[in-house]
């Protein structure tokens, strides 16, 4: 595909969107329960878990990427552990590796907004729902999540956007295999390295427009929510 006479590789774009979407879904499934558990935890071990979840925020992505390569290489502990369940194959330098790396790296971006949303819930309202005979699962889906939707939205968007913008972890865990694991951020780096500034410009512009549109959308929805919830 060409745009303004410049060749535009679409594969990195699709791959990036796919990884980001799947990462967001996986984190909704595992990050939301983690956030709930942490927000209700009264033990003094809570700080330890909170620090663990937030580690990716402060670590250089290369550190996380390095440990992931060690854990996920064909003879690594994670691969061998999965082997016990009949898994055979490779975790690094493919799509699976990209998703695993992104999930770990974006964990705090889902967990932290959700935790603060959960902590902001009124205990009285949850008690009221219980006394109206709503059991835990009922309560979780009919009261807790709807009242935390702002956190849900912020967490999902941050996760998605953060995955799109990732560089270090995906480069180390996914590598830079054209047509397989080359994501947009890496493709731009590649073009710059090879002095293909026109292609780098085009991809960068696509990213800027996408990121800007996403954020405007989020703030719009956010404003409507706040107005409704008062």
């Amino acid at each position, binding site marked *: 595909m060409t745009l303004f006479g410049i060749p535009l590789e679409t594969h990195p774009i699709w791959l990036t969107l796919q990884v980001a979407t799947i990462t967001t879904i996986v984190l909704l499934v595992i990050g939301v329960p983690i956030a709930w558990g942490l927000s209700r935890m009264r033990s003094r071990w809570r700080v330890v878990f909170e620090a663990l979840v937030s580690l990716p925020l402060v670590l250089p992505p290369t550190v996380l990427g390095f440990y992931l390569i060690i854990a996920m290489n064909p003879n690594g502990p994670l691969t061998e552990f999965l082997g016990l369940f009949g898994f055979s194959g490779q975790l690094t330098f493919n799509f699976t590796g990209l998703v695993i790396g992104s999930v770990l790296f974006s964990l705090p971006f889902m967990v932290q907004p959700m935790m603060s949303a959960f902590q902001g819930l*009124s205990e*009285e*309202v949850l*008690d*009221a*729902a*219980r*006394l*109206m*005979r*709503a*059991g835990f699962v*009922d309560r979780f889906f*009919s*009261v807790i999540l*709807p*009242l935390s*939707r702002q956190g849900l939205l912020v967490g999902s968007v941050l996760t998605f956007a953060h995955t799109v913008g990732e560089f270090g972890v995906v480069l180390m865990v996914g590598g830079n295999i054209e047509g397989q694991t080359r994501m947009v951020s890496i493709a731009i780096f590649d073009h710059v390295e090879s002095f293909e500034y026109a292609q780098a410009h085009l991809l960068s512009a696509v990213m800027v427009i996408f990121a800007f549109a996403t954020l405007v959308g989020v703030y719009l929805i956010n404003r409507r929510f706040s107005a*409704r*919830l*008062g």
Partner: protein
Amino acid sequence: MFAGNLTLTVGDFRMASGDFAFESDGVTALFGRSGSGKSTLLRAMAGLDRHTRGRLRFHDEVWQDGRRGLPAEQRDIGMVFQHAALLAHRTVRGNLDFAARRAPTDRGAAIDRDQIIERTGIAPLLDRAVANLSGGERQRIAIARALIGRPRVLMMDEPLAALDWRAKAELLDLFETVIRDFGIPTVLITHAPAEVERLADRVVFMADGRVERVEALREALGRADSPLFTEEGPVASLEGHLEPVADDPHRLSFITRPRAATDMPVTLWLAHDGRPTNTGSRRLRVRGDDVALARGPVTGISVQNQVAGRIEHIETSRPGRAAVFLELADGQRLVSEVTAHTIDSMGLADGQSVTALIKGAALMG
């Protein structure tokens, strides 16, 4: 019937109720100063805190046995919290639907939904979001929502504490009529004696995290050292019927309810500001300060309410003052607070017949 002995520690505060037992019909007030453990006991009774220990029975059902408690969602309790606890992501109607959809069909108070909406006066609010409602409106919705859930017990945790005086007065009227007419056993937390006197049939007195005593309202108002009496002195609560007076919008008549078949009702006249008011079955709160005593009916005096009574007993209410408890012709009790000097100079003593003069302005309809 509630019977049990519950303990619950929340932070630094420990509630250890001690053995208690009280009938559940009518309205039971949990009364005590703030920090006396009322809310903690109510939360323990509702099963809202998993750290609750001890025993609790509701009739012949076991609600708490040691560490094990019947889950709160299975106790059929309709709860009204101080701040209403409405679901902010739903409209008013959505809040009612939430309760209705989860209500049992085979037990609890089956009251027609439209009737609940009409009695609580929330029909105009149904399609509103709950965010911009006033405190009084929120509490009306909270009580409607609680009733729609077909509770076996209604529990209210200081439902009026956060309201301004006008909303408080309106909701007190609403509670008085709704609770009585629908006949749902109610446990009400309050630290306001006026609410106890208007609503309660019995009082559970709490102090320092435990249940001090359980008394019928009549007993609780029959002793000068009652915790229900504040700096305004002893108070009586009369049961009766409030009725408009033909041709006079500024007066109401209050006809008391005789306690026994042989007793005679007493009629009192009330000043009224002309606002629409809940007539019908009501309670009237009469301060001892507003009741003077005479040996017989007095003529040529502005006081219109003159009621014959017999002195039950006289107690010192505070230094230099005495509470004179009177039994009226209807068998109900009125109290007058006079100086100790008056007792001596009039020679008042138990068993004597006197006339109680009640200032009309004290009795607002």
